[in-house]
């Protein structure tokens, strides 16, 4: 059912606060905007606390705290405490850098429900290379802290061409850390990952092998370790129901207070995303043009408009449609019914060729403040 609200619009059940774009890592697949350095100052504590109160009153109940690296915010503990007191289920999404015994104890005391720890790879070398820092041992220590403080062990590993062949080692590492849930999340192509797509998109053969390894591992360990394997959209023939439709359940707030119906939506042209400094969340969620724009079906074009599956997948991902076709109202080209589907199959064919050929001409672009100042806001095709 759609809960009380306005005009059939349900409540924003999922709130994601990207507390900061600052991050000690420099991951090549980061989905943060490539021009993050050009965004305004971070919201101060009191504003985040107000956002939490307003969101909870609207019915938000699942809370993600991410970034950037949320641990760089020194006020993370009071933010968690306020969220907990309001009745949120509080998830911290972290690389683990900055986590100490002292902080995890304070966060637990403040009511943090869950920690999702991200790994780049199981081998320190690859991990350090891909994040451009020497952090692997630190992460293993953080995993130990997570276990000692009685949190479920939930690991997230982002996969791509450069590490997907290590999926067996990654799962073995996860098992040795006592992981209960492992998300093998293949990179999706937004932000920095879009810039680096030509390096990161795996070949079909790599993906097939990784899935087979994962299946065999899953059968061996049984239910004590839940493994989720998220395929890159580009290998699908139907699009994901991205965000369950923009403006339906998800509300994100960027570090500078910009309210977003998807954490990547900032790139969409022609939409003026309201800022929580200037507007209350209720009016942002129910009344703002930006949040209403992709609600319902009026915005859809063919083939979505007359598609029997439009209520299931909402035409897929608006950001992907924009990045690949230049028009956010087009069908997500991942869909084989899209007239632009060839853009996706061409990228996969290129990945197959590149994986076979080995090394790549253009360098990887690491997420970096200095580079972020220099790059243009994203549009058009990525460098190949």
């Amino acid at each position, binding site marked *: 059912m759609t*809960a*009380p*609200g306005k005009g059939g619009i349900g*409540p924003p*059940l999922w709130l994601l606060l990207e507390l900061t774009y600052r991050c000690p890592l420099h991951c090549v697949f980061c989905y943060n905007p490539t021009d993050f350095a050009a965004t305004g100052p971070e919201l101060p504590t009191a504003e985040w606390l107000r956002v939490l109160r307003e969101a909870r009153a*609207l*019915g938000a*109940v*699942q809370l*993600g705290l991410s970034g950037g690296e949320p641990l760089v915010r020194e006020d993370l503990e009071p933010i968690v405490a306020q969220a907990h007191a309001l*009745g949120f*289920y509080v*998830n911290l999404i972290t690389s683990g850098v900055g986590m100490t015994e002292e902080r995890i104890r304070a966060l637990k005391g403040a009511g943090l*429900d*869950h920690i*999702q720890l991200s790994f780049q790879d199981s081998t320190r070398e690859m991990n350090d290379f891909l994040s451009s820092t020497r952090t692997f041992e630190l992460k293993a220590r953080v995993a130990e802290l997570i276990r000692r403080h009685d*949190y*479920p062990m*939930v690991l997230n590993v982002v996969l791509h061409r450069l590490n997907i062949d290590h999926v067996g080692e990654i799962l073995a590492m996860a098992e040795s850390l006592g992981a209960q*849930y492992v998300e093998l999340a293949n990179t999706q192509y937004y932000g920095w990952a879009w810039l680096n797509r030509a390096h990161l998109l795996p070949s079909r053969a790599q993906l097939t092998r990784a899935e087979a390894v994962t299946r065999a591992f899953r059968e061996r360990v049984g239910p004590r370790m839940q493994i989720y394997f998220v395929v890159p959209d580009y290998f699908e023939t139907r699009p994901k129901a991205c965000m369950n439709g923009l403006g339906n359940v998800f509300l994100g707030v960027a570090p500078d207070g910009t309210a977003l119906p998807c954490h990547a939506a900032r790139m969409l042209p022609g939409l003026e995303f309201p800022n929580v400094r200037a507007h209350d969340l209720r009016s942002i969620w129910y009344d703002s043009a930006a949040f209403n724009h992709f609600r319902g079906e009026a915005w859809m074009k063919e083939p979505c408009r007359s598609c029997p599956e439009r209520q299931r997948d909402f035409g897929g991902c608006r950001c992907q449609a924009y990045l690949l076709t230049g028009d956010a109202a087009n069908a997500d080209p991942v869909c084989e019914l899209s007239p632009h589907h060839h853009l996706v199959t061409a990228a996969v064919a290129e990945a197959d060729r590149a994986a076979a050929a080995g090394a790549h001409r253009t360098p990887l672009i690491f997420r970096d403040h200095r580079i972020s100042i220099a790059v243009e806001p994203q549009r058009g095709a990525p460098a190949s």
Partner: protein
Amino acid sequence: MSGLDGSARPAIAHGMRLQWEPVQEAHVLLYPEGMVKLNGSAGAILERCDGVRTVAQIVADLERAFGSTNLSDDVTAFVELALERGWLELRE
């Protein structure tokens, strides 16, 4: 049937949280990065799974609260499903 004993004491599983959401007018079960919205009967059963009451006591309590009889099979089946899904765990 796994043959759940009437003397078993189910409790909301570790890491999960059951709470009433006024905006959704429903109980929800919250877990890491996920949420299940429960229907009325599921909510009424889970609400009573406190690790103290036995399944038999929960059945009796629900029959009293809803002026009903013969709820045992339905409640047991739901508790078994919830155990299987990891929503509930049994306490000593």
